[in-house]
């Protein structure tokens, strides 16, 4: 059961690199024991966000509360409770065993190191006898990734932050990483925050799905991002904001009042063809690229490609059936300009 105090509470959090704002979060909570999946385009601030949550860097502005208490990088309280696995994890120039038990050794927690390392390696599908003596350079990419995960799981952290854990591994390694991560939540209530471009993998493991765009966080299935660049067009004396698409098409947007244009998912309709009776101003051709059953809700997750942007909608089986959706089919996305809002 989730703790009443969120594990993370972020307040007016901003981070800058060379004057450019890369993370901009007004308020955000991450419940204890949850699994949060985060996706977004390259450069949207996901990795910086994870580093902030790992207390590896200090935010330029704002505060991060951990277990209700404001914390800072290198604080002894968070150092032993939060761990981050980067996209290309660095293995120390030592044996696999030494890598796995490093975190325990610096905590001076040296009881039954071998047995614990054996369990951690087994959790990620690596045989202790076959691997513990291997040097860091004698591992494949997937094995190195799993050793890095074992080195974090052995610490039984309260928060495990994974940055693209399956980006460069094969399907079997991805399955084992997912299994080990889920087991961490089930065994000691570990809170997982996972960044990945593999949306199917992310959907399979996340309780909450978030998207990041220009350093801001959005709820993936509730709000659809209409990503920049935006342009203005002059019609007579009025200036209108648009999102240009290919073939001269465009999405009409309301007057700009924020950084990113969004539309609530429930305000979007999918039509088989352009329906003249519908008064919506925006009609965008889309291609169905993927459909998958979301096991937790039984709904169908439909990925649509609208050329300038992609979006994922959750539909009921009946809705998907009525629209005869199949990967490869072309449909029309319809929504009103007035339903679009800025944040």
């Amino acid at each position, binding site marked *: 059961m989730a703790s009443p105090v969120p594990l993370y509470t972020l307040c007016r959090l901003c981070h800058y690199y060379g004057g450019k704002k890369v993370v901009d979060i007004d308020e955000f909570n991450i419940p204890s024991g949850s699994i949060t999946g985060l996706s977004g385009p390259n450069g949207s601030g996901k990795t910086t966000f994870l580093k902030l949550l790992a207390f590896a860097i200090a935010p330029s502005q704002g505060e991060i509360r951990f277990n209700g208490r404001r914390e800072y990088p290198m604080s002894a309280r968070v150092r032993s409770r939060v761990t*981050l696995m980067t996209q290309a994890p660095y293995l*120390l120039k030592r044996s696999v065993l030494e890598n796995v038990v490093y975190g325990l050794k610096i905590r001076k927690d040296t009881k039954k190191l071998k047995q614990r390392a054996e369990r951690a390696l087994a959790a990620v599908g690596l045989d202790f006898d076959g691997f513990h003596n291997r040097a860091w350079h004698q591992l494949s990419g997937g094995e190195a990734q799993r050793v890095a995960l074992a080195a974090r799981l052995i610490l039984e952290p309260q928060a495990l932050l994974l940055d693209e854990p399956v980006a460069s591994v094969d399907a079997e390694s991805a399955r084992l990483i997912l299994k080990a991560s889920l087991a961490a939540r089930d065994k000691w209530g570990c809170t997982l925050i996972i960044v990945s471009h593999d949306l199917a993998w992310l959907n399979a493991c996340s309780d909450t799905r978030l998207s990041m765009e220009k350093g801001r966080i959005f709820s993936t299935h509730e709000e659809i991002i209409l990503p920049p660049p935006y342009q203005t067009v002059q019609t007579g004396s009025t200036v209108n904001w648009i999102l240009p698409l290919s073939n001269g098409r465009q999405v009409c947007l309301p007057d700009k009042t924020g950084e990113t244009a969004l539309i609530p998912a429930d305000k979007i309709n999918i039509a088989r063809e352009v329906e003249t009776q519908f008064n919506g101003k925006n009609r965008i051709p889309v291609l169905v690229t993927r459909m998958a059953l979301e096991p937790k809700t039984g709904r169908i997750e439909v990925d649509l490609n609208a050329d300038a942007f992609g979006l994922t909608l959750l539909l009921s089986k009946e809705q998907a059936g009525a629209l005869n959706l199949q990967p490869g089919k072309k449909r029309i996305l319809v929504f009103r300009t007035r339903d679009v809002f800025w944040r």
Partner: protein
Amino acid sequence: MPITSVAETVLTFLVEGFFKAIELLISGDISTWSAVSATLNASTGSMLVSLLTGLPCGFVLGYFDFRFKRPIRTILDTLLALPTVCVGLIVYAFISSKGPLGDMGLLFTLTGIAIGQTILAFPVVTAITAAIIENIDPALKLTLVSLGAGKKDIILTCLWEVRFGILAAAVTAYGRVLTEVGISMIVGGNIKYHTRTMTTAIALETNKGLFADGIALGIVLMAIAFTVNLSLSFLRKK
């Protein structure tokens, strides 16, 4: 003199020197072994001190950003080419009877030589360590922080991760210390059985016209350098 005759003469010196070197070592020649001992004592002492001080300084210089870091690096890089006779002169000025440290009685002692050699080796160890630390994979620090390492753990683990580079720094510094003449000659005074090192002995033998003896001592010096490097290479494999 025809070129072939010159080549023959040089070859003769080398061959004679080689056999002489073996003879000096096997026969237990006191002056040779005394020079070997003086060389090893002074260089080992200076290397220990320069490593103990140079490694932390190099780490600080390579790891942290602070004011005047660049000028310090530039000065340190310049000191890499510090002439040994200059170091000898400066140390002499300090430890001679009229110098501020004259009362300590360090002139014409192995300790005096070791002080000069430390000044010579310190910039080498510090500059190379700083360069190695600067080029450390940024993912290493993030990994250590994410595994819960504190500041002390980060420093020690970073140094251990770049141990092969640091070993190279130590070997380079040791090479500089082992082969210098200026400091040993000026500060040590080349006193037989006391402060005569391998290099000052070679200079002396050559001045006396005993080329074969000079070459023999040179070969012994190279053998010492080779043994040290071989040991470090073995450590590296371990």
